[in-house]
């Protein structure tokens, strides 16, 4: 029972989504932008993000009366500008043979010009908008189904939903439409959502509707895992860019894949749903907390982080290829000193430092008190300038090295706190099951948060994710 409660803390619920993530991160202006499809389309396009082409928009009854329906292409999508959750969207796939203004929908039912007019009138009245205020209707080009997805999709166009937080794509799912969902990929309408491995863009587990786990497309033996999404890197980058452009701190980005044009951005979503967690069989809350406060420099950097942090498979793949282990900025290590003395501490991984340094007090506990006391007695110049640092070091080395068997070396270290002379000793540590033998310099670190920093000389077997 208690364990289940602990586990449930990894999951993002409605209350937490609204209060912790949407409220502080999605400001009113950004939310209004996401709710306004035409406006967000324009903004995305201006910033170099590909979107489906706009065919025509109808703002008023007069526009509708003057509109020439015969000019519409044979396939298009009719949308309300402020529609909610896929409501009021009408998709047609082609003209009926030998008929001027009759189109065919996904379920083969026919749509006449009168049907379109009525739908547009309802849109203009605001029947589908969030607050029932008058709305604008627009026609846009239909995304063409790619060969990759053809076997999996029933009439509709699949799209990839990516949750982006703090410029890192945190979780993603592939949404497929089914017979029941009327060619729309909305999960509430009975669509399928497949979890995606962030590193490789390959689908893993799948859910249909709100919570039913499935393995194959219903009624077939087509497996839903292992679908490789083409141009995955680009899709993730588009999602992060859309976040930067839109200002939505907590974004659900919908990206589709066009047969000819590749990734196209469909929609910004300020209130993304929670089913993505079931599709991925993982909680969002832990992932969101993981990326909170990270400094992300660019879209590429954000995507790289996501692949390292949340890509289950690639991490192992990477370790297999290069033998490197992926570690964080702070890691638990076990220090092994003289005569097998052991000590477990938290170390800061600092690629900015060249060598590893250990706190003097800690070194005493590890059996180095002899060398520390010896080093304390050595006469050292009080003031060292950058110029004579090298000479002093040579001088000290010549005089005192080899007089104590634990004193491996003497170093002059230039750090933010000044220039200091430090003794070096042989010490080994175990990090992530990997043993490293190193020459660590000893220094006063009692006031600092971590008693050990590991420098880049000792990180050859590791890959640091920031």
């Amino acid at each position, binding site marked *: 029972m208690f364990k*289940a409660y602990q*586990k*449930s803390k*990894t*999951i993002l*619920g*409605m*209350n*937490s989504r609204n*209060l*912790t993530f949407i409220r502080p991160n999605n400001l009113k202006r950004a939310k209004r932008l996401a709710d306004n499809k035409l406006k967000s389309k324009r903004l995305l396009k201006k910033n170099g993000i590909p979107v489906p082409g706009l065919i025509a928009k109808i703002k008023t009854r007069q526009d509708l009366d003057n509109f020439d329906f015969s000019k519409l292409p044979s396939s298009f999508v009719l949308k309300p500008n402020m529609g*909610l*959750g896929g*409501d009021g969207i009408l998709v047609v796939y082609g003209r009926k043979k030998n008929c001027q203004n009759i189109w065919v929908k996904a379920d083969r039912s026919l749509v006449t010009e009168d049907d379109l007019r*009525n739908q547009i*009138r*309802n849109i203009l*009245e*605001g*029947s*589908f908008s969030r607050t*029932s205020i008058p709305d604008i209707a627009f026609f846009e080009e239909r995304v063409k189904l790619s060969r990759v997805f053809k076997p999996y999709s029933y009439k509709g166009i699949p799209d990839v939903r990516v949750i982006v937080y703090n410029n890192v794509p945190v979780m993603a799912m592939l949404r497929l439409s089914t017979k029941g969902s009327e060619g729309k990929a909305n999960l509430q309408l009975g669509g399928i959502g497949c979890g995606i491995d962030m590193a490789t863009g390959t689908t893993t587990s799948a859910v249909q509707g*709100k*919570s039913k*786990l499935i393995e194959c497309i219903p009624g077939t033996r087509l497996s839903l895992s292992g679908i490789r999404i083409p141009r995955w890197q680009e899709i993730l980058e588009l999602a992060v860019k859309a976040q930067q452009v839109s200002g939505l701190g907590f974004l659900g980005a919908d990206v589709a894949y066009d047969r000819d044009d590749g990734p196209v951005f469909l929609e910004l979503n300020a209130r993304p749903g*929670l089913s993505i*967690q*079931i599709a991925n*069989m*993982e*909680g969002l809350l832990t992932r969101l907390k993981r990326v909170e406060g990270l400094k992300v420099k660019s879209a590429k950097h954000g995507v790289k982080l996501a692949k390292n942090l949340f890509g289950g498979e690639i991490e192992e793949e990477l370790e297999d290829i290069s033998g490197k282990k992926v570690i964080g900025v702070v890691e638990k290590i076990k220090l092994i000193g003289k005569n097998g003395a052991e000590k477990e501490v938290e170390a800061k991984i600092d690629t900015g430092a060249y060598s590893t340094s250990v706190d003097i007090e800690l070194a005493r506990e590890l059996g180095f008190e002899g060398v520390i006391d010896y080093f304390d007695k050595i006469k050292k110049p009080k003031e060292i300038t950058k110029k004579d640092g090298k000479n002093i070091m040579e001088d000290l080395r010549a005089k005192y090295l080899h007089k104590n068997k634990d004193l491996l070396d003497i170093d002059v270290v230039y750090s933010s706190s000044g220039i200091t002379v430090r003794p070096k000793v042989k010490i080994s540590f175990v990090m992530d099951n990997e043993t490293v033998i190193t020459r660590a310099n000893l220094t006063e670190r009692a006031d600092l948060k971590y008693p050990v920093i590991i420098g880049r000389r000792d990180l050859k077997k590791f890959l640091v994710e920031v």
Partner: protein
Amino acid sequence: MYSAFVEYAVSQGVPLGTVTLILMLPIVVLIIAFFRQVVGIKAFGIYTPALIIFAFLAIKAEAGSFWGGIRYGTAIFGTVIAVGTLARIFLRRFRLLYLPRVAIVISIVSLSTLLMLILGGMFQRTGLASVSIFPILIMITLVEKFVTVQIEKGGKAAVYLSLETLFISIVGYSIASWALLIFYLQQYPWLVFVAIVINIFLGKWTGLRLSEVIRFKKLIKNV
């Protein structure tokens, strides 16, 4: 007998029943908020269920018994939803615009309610026939909410939300009819401020809702 505040209100001519009902309102909305945030039952927002609870209470006052309130209240509620659904299905083929369509649905629902009251009288259900206009009007306004949800989220969601609303209304009604609670509210009217404090906690609550625990059951097991 009552707290000084309630005594004073009554001595100034405010009926005791009114004072009690008004003091009950913060409790009722707290119950609805609790159901939304902790249990995860949505219903039609907060306003509609609160009104329906008061409609139930008004029916109880006229029918004279707790079960009378539930019986007649549920009967009127059910009629409104059932007729609303049928009317919408019937009107779909005419392709009307939103407001005129809702207007027709409301008209049909009111006439059906009247018919039901007459039928109730014919079958000697005098309690039903004598229900005053106030609760009936409230129930009829439910139709607009119902039709809006039908259009936006589909018929199934609308029926589901109606059942949730009915459920919350019956629970809220039962609590609001609880003699002990009424007694305490009359004795200690400041209890309504406790309700506000609880609401602050609910407003900061970020845990999973009960409905989400059920929805994510497999996921919780798998993590």
